[in-house]
């Protein structure tokens, strides 16, 4: 990236109306490994590719449960993600303590966005370097949100963020019209297919580097275990989105 004159801190606009520090923070998200989410009428599925810093190390987890009805997938600085994760978990706990019911999803995303925006309007602070995909269920239905370091948030039917996420988004653009009525199994296979588009040629999906989390109207957030992941990756070989159209 070219060095710009107006990028020293968040409190300086560029003449083109950009806050470069915020843009640079968004770049940090794009450097993180891919995570994606997609939803049907009853379920939300989060799929992520876990990175292994070295052969000796474990794989970095990318999905975190916030409450029974809510979970996040992260892309970007893991340390910043941990701060936001803790904040969200605390908010959910406090809401449950006071009202004995689940924190509405959109409202928590709004709070995270407000917190993120605050960091973009201060001299001594820097934006959070992490993007979240927030999956949640509340009385308004099934939700998938994306949050940005800029403090913006959007609701999606399906979305992918992180490195090489455009490939996954292209897959989504072709097939998202099927997701609404998909079964859970079809939804997971669509997610894994999109993930497969985004990996490098010499990489392959296996139960160690893939993380899949599911959340449903009657399903608390859970991760698929290693055996289930293996089974799905095998099913992926024969999965064809075209067959789903023929069924309907």
């Amino acid at each position, binding site marked *: 990236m070219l060095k710009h004159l107006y990028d020293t801190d968040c409190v300086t606009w560029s003449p083109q109306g950009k806050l470069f520090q915020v843009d640079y923070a968004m770049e940090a998200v794009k450097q993180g490994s891919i995570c994606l989410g997609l939803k049907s009428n009853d379920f939300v599925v989060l799929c992520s590719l876990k990175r292994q810093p070295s052969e000796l190390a474990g794989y970095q987890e990318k999905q975190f449960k916030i409450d029974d009805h809510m979970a996040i997938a992260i892309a970007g600085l893991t340390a910043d993600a941990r701060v936001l994760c803790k904040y969200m978990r605390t908010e959910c706990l406090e809401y449950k*303590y*006071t*009202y*004995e*019911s689940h924190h*509405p999803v*959109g*409202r928590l995303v*709004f709070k995270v966005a407000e917190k993120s925006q605050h960091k973009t309007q201060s001299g001594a602070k820097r934006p959070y370097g992490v993007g979240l995909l927030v999956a949640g269920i*509340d*009385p*308004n239905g099934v939700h998938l949100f994306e949050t940005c370091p800029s403090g913006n948030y959007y609701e999606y039917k399906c979305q992918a963020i992180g490195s090489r996420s455009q490939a996954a988004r292209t897959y989504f653009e072709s097939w998202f019209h099927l997701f609404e009525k998909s079964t859970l199994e079809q939804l997971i296979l669509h997610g894994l297919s999109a993930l497969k588009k985004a990996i490098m040629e010499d990489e392959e999906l296996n139960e160690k580097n893939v993380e899949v989390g599911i959340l449903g109207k009657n399903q608390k957030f859970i991760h698929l275990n290693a055996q289930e992941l293996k089974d799905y990756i095998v099913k992926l070989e024969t999965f064809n989105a075209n067959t789903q159209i023929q069924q309907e």
Partner: protein
Amino acid sequence: MIFNSEISGQQQHTTSPVVTGGSVIALVYNGGVIVGTDTLCSYGSMATFKNVQKIAQISKNTIYASSGEFSDFQQVVKELAKIDRSALQYDDGVHPSPKDYGNFLARLSYKKRCKINPLYLQNVIAGFHNGERYLGLVDIYGTYLESNFITTGFASYFCKAIIANYWNENCTLDQAKQVIRECFKVLFCRDCRAHDVIQLAYVDAQGAHIEEPERVETKWDFNGFKSRANEKLHTQ
């Protein structure tokens, strides 16, 4: 008069109520929940304010009534209305359910009890949400209970037998109203701080309805009063 708090800045604690409201009776019926109170606020033993509405509508499908210190009732109404209004700032159309209000009030009451400065109230929250009836009681200590019928104050002593014999959870609205009217008739006769004008309010699928106050039926034309039998004894 100089109060202690002005000299030393000490926190005052509510030790006894000043202006009080009487019993609240609430029942569940087949289409919703109904709450009844009288319209009296007493100043000790004096029946000072005789036309008071003691049932408040908190949100579209929740109503709230309480017995005890009336200024605390007014304060709680403000606190609960605050929650409903602050839901607007999130633009998500999600409003607290009746149960959310009940739990919030329980947490608030418990907090104040822990500071030995309670909201001097027995609270009743009634509502209808997602096709389900809700009726909750929060007492002065912050105890939280959900039930099919709730009585506070003297009604807990006099009216439970009437409710047990004439009400069931699937009765009609009119049947439930009659039971409550009968209860307040008895209360007017036996509770010194009760009044014969009552007000009923119910919540059903269409929302909250608070009715106009009505006078309970009372009977005073007993022969004993007419023929003044006792007086004769005394003039002999």
